[in-house]
């Protein structure tokens, strides 16, 4: 056998490899620790995690409370140990609070892990265990405002539709109404009829987050923003003469109820919601960059919320026909949007272009009131730049002072907004939209209202927003 020359530095090399591998293990341990400490809480609160359900064997589900401590959901334990989940406000918070015993939706799902965790002190825990009593789960304090929710629900009345109210500078959702609703206290008895195929009311659907509607004239916010981007210096020079009907090739676009607006600047056309002006303006737009803009504004995109929601869709591409462009520019055609999404866009405009992530859980505390976890406002990022936001804000202010938003015109506070009346089926009333915020110069509230088949946005939707603003600013 040849005697080879051994590598004289082999032990040093072994040391190098050992260090490298130990380093890898340290990284892996760090990752594992990070997972357990930081990530796990968000990950395990998932409907695919059957483990959480077993927590309820040893813990009484905690309470859901409004921001001022009113009970929205609580578990009542009878003498014999049977538990019933009670919702003191019946149908008022149905969709946003959700339910927990036919699957879990709404806050009952979002907060599931916290409600089923108990941070009562060790002595109490031990005593409970020894006496075979369940521990009390933590309470979750939401961002919801009972007063606003009540006003929004009353104003919407028996009509179908949705209302979303949020704080633009924090993302806190203060109210979220969807109608028709259901009573979560009698869900067990009503379940079969609610999910039956003959039921056309879709009471279980949270229209605020899952209902997709054509945005109608509220979409003119997007059209005008695109036009402003393409003509940064000259967009105010645009004019249009409206005789109630705008004809292009073989197509005709009518203004609402055939109103002739006469000579219009772009500001006036926006305030009066002149369809002719916006259709003709749409034909000038660069469809490629229009597509980019809508994606930036979260069409066809994930919304930053853990609630179940539908994605808004904007499908017009560069190869669109003239008819599609005419329709899409005024929010008709195949564009679809949820009320929550509309409210996020309004919030971003109100907040200098920056969208705050909407959230519903303010903090978690023990039964004794000790704070366990606090959720803080988080920025999603800018949807547009600050100049664009302030220009849009001015334009939306004109809608209220000089245009279709007269229902929210008042001396008490300043509202900026946009109305919409979206056609969806020939022969039926239009869906009524209002989306806006107040006070215009320093927004505290962003409100979006949708009334299904409500008629005109100015007459059906804006008054609902008015009652919400009135309540808030009279406090």
């Amino acid at each position, binding site marked *: 056998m040849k005697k080879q020359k051994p*590598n004289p530095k082999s032990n040093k*090399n072994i040391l190098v490899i050992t260090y490298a591998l130990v380093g890898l293990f340290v990284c892996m341990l760090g990752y594992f620790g990070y997972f357990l400490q930081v990530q796990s809480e968000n990950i395990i609160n998932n409907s695919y*995690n*059957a483990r959480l359900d*077993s927590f309820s064997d040893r813990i009484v589900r905690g309470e859901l409370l409004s921001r001022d401590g009113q009970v929205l959901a609580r578990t009542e334990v009878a003498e014999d140990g049977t538990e019933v989940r009670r919702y003191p406000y019946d149908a008022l918070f149905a969709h946003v609070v959700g339910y927990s015993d036919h699957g879990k939706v709404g806050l009952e799902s979002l907060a599931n892990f916290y409600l089923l965790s108990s941070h009562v002190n060790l002595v109490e825990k031990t005593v409970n265990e020894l006496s075979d009593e369940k521990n009390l789960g933590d309470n979750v304090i939401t961002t919801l405002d009972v007063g606003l929710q009540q006003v929004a629900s009353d104003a919407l009345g028996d009509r179908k539709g949705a209302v979303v109210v949020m704080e633009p500078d924090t993302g806190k959702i203060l109210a979220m109404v969807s109608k028709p609703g259901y009573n979560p206290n009698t869900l067990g008895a009503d379940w079969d009829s609610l999910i039956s195929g003959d039921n056309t009311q879709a009471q279980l659907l949270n229209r605020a987050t899952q209902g997709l509607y054509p945005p109608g004239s509220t979409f003119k916010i997007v059209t005008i923003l695109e036009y402003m981007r393409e003509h940064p210096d000259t967009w105010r020079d645009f004019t249009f003469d409206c005789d109630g009907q705008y004809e292009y090739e073989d197509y005709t676009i009518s203004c609402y109820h055939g109103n002739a607006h006469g000579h219009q600047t772009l500001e006036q056309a926006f305030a009066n919601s002149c369809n002719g002006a916006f259709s003709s303006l749409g034909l000038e737009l660069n469809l490629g960059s229009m597509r980019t803009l809508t994606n930036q504004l979260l069409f066809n995109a994930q919304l930053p919320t853990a609630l179940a929601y539908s994605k808004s869709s904007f499908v017009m591409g560069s190869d669109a026909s003239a008819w599609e462009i005419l329709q899409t520019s005024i929010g008709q055609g195949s564009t679809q949007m949820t009320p929550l999404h509309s409210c996020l866009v309004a919030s971003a405009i109100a907040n200098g272009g920056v969208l705050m992530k909407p959230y519903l859980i303010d903090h978690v505390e023990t039964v004794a009131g000790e704070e366990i976890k606090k959720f803080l406002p988080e920025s999603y990022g800018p949807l547009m730049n600050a100049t664009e936001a302030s220009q849009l804000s001015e334009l939306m202010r004109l809608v209220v002072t000089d245009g279709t938003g007269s229902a929210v015109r008042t001396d008490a506070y300043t509202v900026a907004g946009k109305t919409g009346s979206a056609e969806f089926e020939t022969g039926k009333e239009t869906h009524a939209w209002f989306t806006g915020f107040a006070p215009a110069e320093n927004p505290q509230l962003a409100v979006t209202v949708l009334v299904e088949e409500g008629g005109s946005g100015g007459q059906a939707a804006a008054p609902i927003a008015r009652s919400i603003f009135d309540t808030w600013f009279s406090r």
Partner: protein
Amino acid sequence: MVNVIIEVSKYLLILLMAIYTYLNFSYFRFHEEGEQNRTCRRQNVAMFLIHFVAYAILFLKSEDERVVLFYLAQVIFLEAYIGLYRLFYRKMSRILVNNMCMLLCVGFIILTRLSFEKAMRQFLIVAVSALVTWIIPFIMDRVWQLSRIPWVYGILGLVLLIVVWIVGNNSFGAQLSIQIAGIAFQPSEFVKLSFVFFVATMFYRSTDFMTIVVTTAMAAAHVLVLVLSKDLGSALIFFVTYLTMLFVATGSWGYLITGMMGGCGASVVAYALFSHVRTRVAAWSNPWQDIDNRGYQITQSLFAMGTGGWFGMGLYQGMPYKIPVVEKDFVFAAISEELGGIFAVCVLLICLGCFLQFMMIAAKMQSVFYKLIAFGLGIVYVTQVFLTVGGVTKFIPSTGLTLPLVSYGGSSILSTFILFGVIQGLYILKRNDEEDYEETKA
């Protein structure tokens, strides 16, 4: 009441495990044999306490008398293994035997909780493996020819892998095992060892360019057959082992860096070429997207570990059985869920401790042949631990490997026993040499 006991015992188990792990590393500080022996004795106390507490819980929850008998059988086995090994091989490494037994204990505990039948089978396999591999250090002390037959190792290993590739049973999309007399047998577990012997014998004889080319070609053939069999984890182990052994044998950074770049290039090619590679990567990068199918296993694993947290749910308090193949590839998640994240970290640190022992032995060996074997086996072992735990925790894509000595599986147990046996043999050889040297000096 039982809940309170489980709750308290949970913390007790973690504490004992932490003590054991601490002793494992404090051992490195001591150079005097007396101190080392004391440390090892303390470790044994901690281990038997863990074993006792855990089985007490298992019995309380299952109320199955067989658990008590099974426990006693294990105690007898562990006592006998530790005691007799020491009696027979006076100069063996006690700490390695301790760590083996500790890992086996953890395996028995979690397997009994998951499935009593599988735990029984595992115990049987362990007992047979312990008996069979008993002789390894004895053989190594007397048979010198081990370094003379590189091609026996190389060709035998490669042929075995090819046979599996062609006629192997398909399990979870990979060809891993062949059926011999009704027993499923996973050759890649053993070829890992023969491969290390092959590379060590080749480089022991020479490290000239020709030898390196030939050895590299054989190594590449091993890896390629494994990739074709879709056994990606083993392929990676062979690759890493070969590259680092080449580096230690030649001391050439050039080979190491070229090899690593080649490895990166090969993974890109494999990603483009094989759909099963892409599937694994997709299931790792975003398992939530396909939570019903490809992402199911890893997300259940994350739920298990996440819900368990640092302190665990306690034995029988979690749902580890929700994870597919939990008793094999995902046993780490089950440990973490029920015994706690801290306990799981301790298990990982014990594995790392074994690896450090291997490297110390490798560094101390004078003969290049023995040095390379100790080093190569150490790398095989630690890479497997890393890939398994990394896959379970979603640190890296899952490669479907077992956690040595803890996971359920016959081939894995036997091959790990052989691996530890060989290392023990080397350790004993070394200490015999030292003693001879002392004597001649005197």
